[in-house]
């Protein structure tokens, strides 16, 4: 209360003077404009975070979307659907903005027609998948963990294989994407050393990256 008695500080005084000069209505206008802009901005962000937006581009619809429709993240007993942005767009404000900026690259490649035929898509698929693997590895599969909290895994209910692998793997410092590649789409070529096929595909090292010691320490 006694703050009122104090003379306004320099900054406040200048601000008051500015308000008097520009007129309060303009300030209110600016404020409302800001609100409107922020609203529109957020609406745009929301709009571009819908599945319908993603598959608005046939490049996204004809390959990855069709494949994803056969997976557990599209239809499952719980009726919870993971949509494209759930896995591909970070929820946190900062990383989300960065991902959205990167996505303008997709618009460029849309115009360039980089993946506008199945042939071109398949030729580029390995590269695109590697980007996503790297991104998820770097964030310790943050988007997966938004929905799946491994601290809440009930190993008593999980399948034999899941419970075994989760307990050993996660302790070693592995992350979801290390073991769960191809969870929503068909995989690109992977070199599994079966005869002469896929020798150009993802190498064993890329497909099952070794755990870095550093990561293992951080988990403990």
């Amino acid at each position, binding site marked *: 209360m006694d703050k009122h008695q104090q003379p306004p500080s320099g900054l406040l005084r200048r601000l008051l003077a500015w308000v008097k000069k520009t007129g309060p209505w303009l300030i209110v206008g600016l404020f409302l404009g800001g609100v409107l802009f922020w609203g529109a901005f957020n609406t745009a962000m929301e709009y571009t975070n819908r599945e319908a937006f993603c598959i608005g581009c046939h490049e996204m619809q004809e390959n990855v979307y069709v494949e994803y429709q*056969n*997976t*557990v993240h599209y*239809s499952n007993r719980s009726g919870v659907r993971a949509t494209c942005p759930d896995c591909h767009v970070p929820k946190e404000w900062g990383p989300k903005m960065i991902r959205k900026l990167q996505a303008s690259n997709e618009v460029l490649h849309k115009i360039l027609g980089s993946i506008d035929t199945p042939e071109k898509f398949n030729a580029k698929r390995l590269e695109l998948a590697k980007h996503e693997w790297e991104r998820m590895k770097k964030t310790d599969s943050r988007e997966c963990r938004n929905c799946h909290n491994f601290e809440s895994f009930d190993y008593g209910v999980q*399948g*034999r*294989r*899941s419970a*075994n*692998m989760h307990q050993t793997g996660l302790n070693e410092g592995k992350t979801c994407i290390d073991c769960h590649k*191809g969870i929503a789409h*068909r*995989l*690109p*070529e*992977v070199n*599994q*050393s*079966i*005869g002469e*096929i*896929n020798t150009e*595909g993802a190498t*064993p090292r890329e497909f*099952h990256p070794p755990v870095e010691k550093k990561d293992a320490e951080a988990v403990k």
Partner: protein
Amino acid sequence: MKNPSRLFSATLFAVFVASSLFVAPAIGAAESGLKSLRGAEIQAPDTESADPFKGTKDSAPIERNYLQQPPIIPHKIDGYNITIKYNKCMDCHAWSRYKESGATKVSLTHFKTRDGQELSNISPRRYFCVQCHVPQADAKPLVGNRFKAAEGLR
């Protein structure tokens, strides 16, 4: 319009386009009920059929009933694709992977080609695992039978 016949054909065309716009959906609707050759209605199911293999629980390896039996798959295989680009089964069952995944390594017999040549990994004729290996569903036998496991394996 200088040419009445052109006006006439233009009108005709417009009427044709307009009518096809209205009529086409009606035709589509009338023909949506597909019929079999014997005239029975064919209705695509709205929901996925109950797949008895869905929700198979993982279990310990299932005992074999006779020699040379391809072992039953003791775990779920929903979404395990085998394509020319990637063989999901081999991601766990390959000799280079089984230690990490805890899976049974593929049988050595799977490395032999049709001509008896030994390869260093599965031979093409064994590439499609689910040709021979299947998960077990808890389904009642369609007809009664007296099948018993081979003597040496009982």
